[in-house]
């Protein structure tokens, strides 16, 4: 018989709150932070503004800003996890057990990986795509603006669930991918793995929607005359990445659901015994997991293409080759998943095939590096902060890629699998590949989004700190892996001699933290001094692509008159026409028309709110809440779908004219 409490509260009880002092401190800090924000908002009477301007917006640029903000906050969270990991591993030697007990340490690194991949990397990626890509395509918005907002709020709901685990309950201690049998109920009886499952389920559905949204945007929303082969490189890489999203994320959703069924309904998909097979989970999760890392890196490659071409004042070298390389990477990334578990014993034939497939990806990736180098060749290179990020990427990512090719040889992998060598490899790929790309993109496109440039000197300093810090933090890890150091250890024996390397790695992470601090200062300082760094022209870098043809910050409707292009680098051709004359869209028009833009909608955040409650209910077995949330989601979806509202509002031509005239006046000042 269900007691009153267990019906209404499920598994929640007073013991669900943290009992370890460090966690209690973090939880209290989180709650106090939230209370302060809420108090300030109420005091300054900003709730209405927040609701109208941000919480219900369907404008892709605002959604992009919110993604980047959430991602950055999560970078701070994931980064503090990293500091804790390094602190533990530098001190937990011999007789000392370090500051964190094993249970807690295992939650820390599980949270670190989960947050960094799903909320920092994915968040920055979707954020930058939202901020810039529609303008690059010469379009007014993404294909499905309302869906775009829903994707963002689902992402945020997942993010809140992960962070809530700090305050109520605990988090998974099974690593960022939660292999069974460890993640099954028998070995992980607490709600931690369920928090992990549900935050990813919800965020993952948001990602899948974005995948479809951006694919359709690229296919259908390009400017007149912009064939696919005249698109800038960034949308090409986004397109490849979104194809991967569309095919890979359903695998994640299904696999997590099956694991949840094992844990909650007593099923046996992946259990040890009763017909379950943990190897199937490993295969499924990596069939998603491998495409996921290419989902992340491809848009970063696209950003490098934009940055290098602009700051070399030269056309991107080998455009067609670059496009083929993207598709090579997309295709191959579905054929390599087994290299994540060569040591599971699939046999020589299977290991051999997947090893060779893995190595093949090095070819298109190498091609891209050379194409960027030869974009710089015979150019006029300006080493702004984005270019410093790019150079750091070239050196570090290439070296990390070499270690990847090494591990693609199965017997080599047998010796380094699951060691710190592996950890160093994938951090090199993700940090020096993905994160550096997004940092370069943020510096590059900041003026477009906010109307003023970021201080370049501070940008370069932060890039150098990240590069040096990363080398110090992960160089030792390559050596440690070869010394036999397995990943995720919370303690090791003093006689192994590993500690000095861990200490150096700890120093490296502190240098990276300094880099992050400089970035924060860069933003604060540049914002305070923005009058001196204003971008009046909309084109501070003498850019090549269409996003620079809008005002900075971009008008709500992007283009008063939708542009037309006849070649690649559409804006460059408008500025330096040769032969064919394409009208420059920045020149004032004699006639403006009414523009339809997507309207605000409160439905996305409401649906995401119900999704959050659904996740919470599933985690704590509060079944009435699960039912209510499901009903709430469905009712809101129907309310949206069946409403007569066409979801658009009209900006009258007079208002467009006024906005454009103001922009022209600012341009004169530039």
């Amino acid at each position, binding site marked *: 018989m269900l007691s009153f409490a267990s019906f209404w509260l499920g598994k929640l009880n007073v013991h669900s709150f943290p009992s370890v002092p460090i966690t209690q401190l973090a939880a209290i800090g989180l709650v106090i932070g939230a209370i302060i924000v809420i108090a300030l908002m109420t005091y300054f009477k900003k709730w209405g503004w927040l609701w109208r301007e941000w919480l219900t917006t369907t404008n892709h640029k605002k959604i992009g800003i919110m993604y980047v903000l959430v991602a950055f906050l999560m970078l701070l969270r994931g980064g503090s996890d990293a500091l804790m990991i390094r602190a533990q591993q530098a001190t937990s030697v011999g007789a000392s057990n370090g500051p964190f007990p094993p249970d807690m340490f295992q939650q820390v690194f599980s949270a670190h990986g989960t947050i960094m991949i799903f909320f920092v990397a994915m968040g920055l990626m979707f954020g930058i795509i939202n901020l810039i890509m529609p303008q690059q395509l010469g379009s007014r918005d993404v294909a499905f603006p309302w869906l775009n907002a829903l994707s963002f709020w689902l992402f945020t709901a997942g993010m809140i669930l992960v962070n809530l685990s700090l305050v109520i309950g605990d988090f998974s201690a099974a690593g960022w991918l939660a292999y069974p049998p460890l993640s099954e109920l028998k070995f992980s009886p607490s709600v931690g793995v369920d928090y992990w499952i549900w935050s990813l389920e919800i965020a993952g559905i948001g990602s899948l929607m974005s995948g479809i949204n951006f694919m359709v945007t690229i296919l259908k929303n390009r400017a007149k005359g912009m064939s696919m082969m005249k698109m800038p490189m960034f949308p090409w890489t986004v397109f490849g990445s979104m194809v991967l999203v569309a095919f890979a994320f359903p695998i994640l959703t299904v696999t997590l659901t099956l694991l949840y069924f094992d844990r909650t309904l007593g099923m046996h998909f992946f259990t040890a015994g009763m017909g379950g097979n943990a190897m199937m989970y490993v295969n499924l999760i990596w069939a998603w997991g491998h495409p996921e890392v290419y989902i992340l890196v491809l848009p970063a490659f696209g950003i490098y293409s934009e940055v290098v071409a602009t700051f070399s004042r030269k056309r991107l070298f080998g455009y067609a080759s670059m496009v083929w390389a993207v598709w090579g990477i997309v295709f191959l990334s579905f054929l390599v998943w087994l290299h994540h578990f060569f040591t599971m*014993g699939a046999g020589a034939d299977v290991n*051999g095939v997947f090893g060779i497939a893995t190595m093949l990806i090095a070819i298109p990736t190498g091609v891209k590096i*050379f194409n960027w180098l030869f974009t710089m060749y015979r150019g006029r290179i300006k080493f702004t902060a984005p270019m410093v990020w790019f150079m750091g990427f070239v050196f570090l990512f290439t070296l990390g890629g070499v270690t990847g090719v090494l591990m693609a040889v199965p017997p080599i992998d047998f010796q380094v699998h699951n060691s710190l060598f592996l950890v160093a490899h994938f951090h090199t790929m993700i940090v020096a590949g993905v994160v550096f790309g997004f940092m370069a993109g943020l510096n590059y496109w900041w003026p477009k989004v906010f109307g003023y440039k970021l201080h370049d000197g501070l940008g370069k300093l932060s890039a150098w700190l990240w590069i040096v810090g990363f080398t110090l933090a992960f160089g030792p890890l390559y050596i440690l892996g070869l010394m036999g150091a397995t990943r995720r250890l919370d303690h090791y024996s003093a006689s192994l001699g590993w500690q000095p390397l861990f200490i150096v790695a700890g120093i490296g992470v502190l240098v990276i933290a300094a880099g992050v601090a400089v970035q924060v200062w860069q933003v604060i300082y540049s914002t305070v001094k923005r009058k001196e760094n204003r971008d009046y022209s909309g084109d501070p870098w003498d850019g090549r692509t269409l996003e620079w043809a809008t005002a900075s910050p971009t008008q709500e409707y992007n283009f008063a008159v939708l542009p037309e292009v006849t070649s690649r680098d559409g804006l460059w051709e408008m500025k330096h026409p040769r032969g064919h004359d394409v009208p420059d869209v920045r020149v004032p028009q004699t006639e403006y028309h009414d523009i339809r833009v997507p309207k605000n909608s409160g439905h996305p955040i409401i649906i995401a709110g119900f999704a959050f409650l659904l996740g919470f209910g599933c985690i704590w077995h509060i079944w009435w809440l699960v039912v209510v949330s499901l009903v709430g989601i469905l009712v809101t979806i129907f309310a949206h779908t069946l409403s007569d509202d066409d979801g658009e509002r009209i900006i009258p031509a007079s208002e467009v004219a006024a906005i454009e005239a103001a922009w022209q006046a600012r341009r004169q000042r530039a």
Partner: protein
Amino acid sequence: MRKKYRIILPIVAVALVAALTAWYLSRHSIPVFEPRGPVAHQERGLIFLALILAVIVVVPTFGLTIYIAIKYREENHTAKTKYRPDFDHSVLFEGLWWGIPIVIIGILSVVAWNSAHSLDPARALASTKKPLTVQVVSLDWKWLFIYPEQHIASVNLAEIPANTPVDFQVTSDTIMNSFWVPQLGGQIYSMPGMITQLHLEASKLGDYFGSPANIAGRGFSRMNFTVRAASQSDYDAWVRKAEAAPRKLTVANYQQLAKPSDNVPVSYYSSVPDGFQKAVAMQYMMPDMSLAKQLGTGANTQPATMDMNMSSDSTKQQMACQDGKFCAMKSAPATTEKTSSPASTTKMCGTMPADMNMSGMDESKAAMSC
């Protein structure tokens, strides 16, 4: 910063780091690069080969990068520096940077295929000596080593004779782990319900560090083990020492061992029942296959069958075994519910067949009836 400091300071910093690294490496060994067995030796050779092939591409690329970055920097442009803003295509260059990587990856692919086969962990090592079988069971949080032919077992220390191939058969009676002895060779996962194989050999005497190489719960950082390569006589003495251990590996003692504990000191068990590791793995095959039932320490209880294709309403028979011998059933299901031919079962006792195939029983390999 003044221009000359901008160049000198980084060079000094890099030199300092390089010197410190060299000093550290001179005082510490890198086990993967100091193999003590043929498998690890070949794996190290592969690492060096792959690195050399990679360096062939990477070093010129880095040189080119630095050259281009300096020469074409806007501030470094002279009247003679070429600026070709539309130079975006070259069949020659494309041919080179598609072609050369394809060749290098082609060579590495052949290497990968061949080595995946020659260094397949399940493949026996070439040797004149008869291989020693060591059965490994990963527990929370220690390693049990069963020597089936010697009928002994040890915890967290596996002594092997040097220059003798060892066939490690690895399973888990808890969650997934990974059995890794870096100086002897690469690792293999240990998984419940499955038995993986890893062939290793030690070519020098010594104690080799063993690592649990997969996250396995709270105590997994404290379950390192040692593989000790000894002379034949020392190894024989060690086996005799284990045979004299007061405890036997009964089901009860095993279950005591399997309770969660970490930092477990080395201990020994004399007298291990035949087919013990197989029974550990088989626990996960059917719901009622506890160790006690399989190894016959319990009274007559609900029997189980080995045949995976059995339907649930096939006739089951009790099984009873003595002397720790392993019992198995081969059953033929009742043909249909309507016919009168009943299900038949044949009981066989004896040592388990050497092969891992559990679907049906190969009657010719089983020993005689109990």
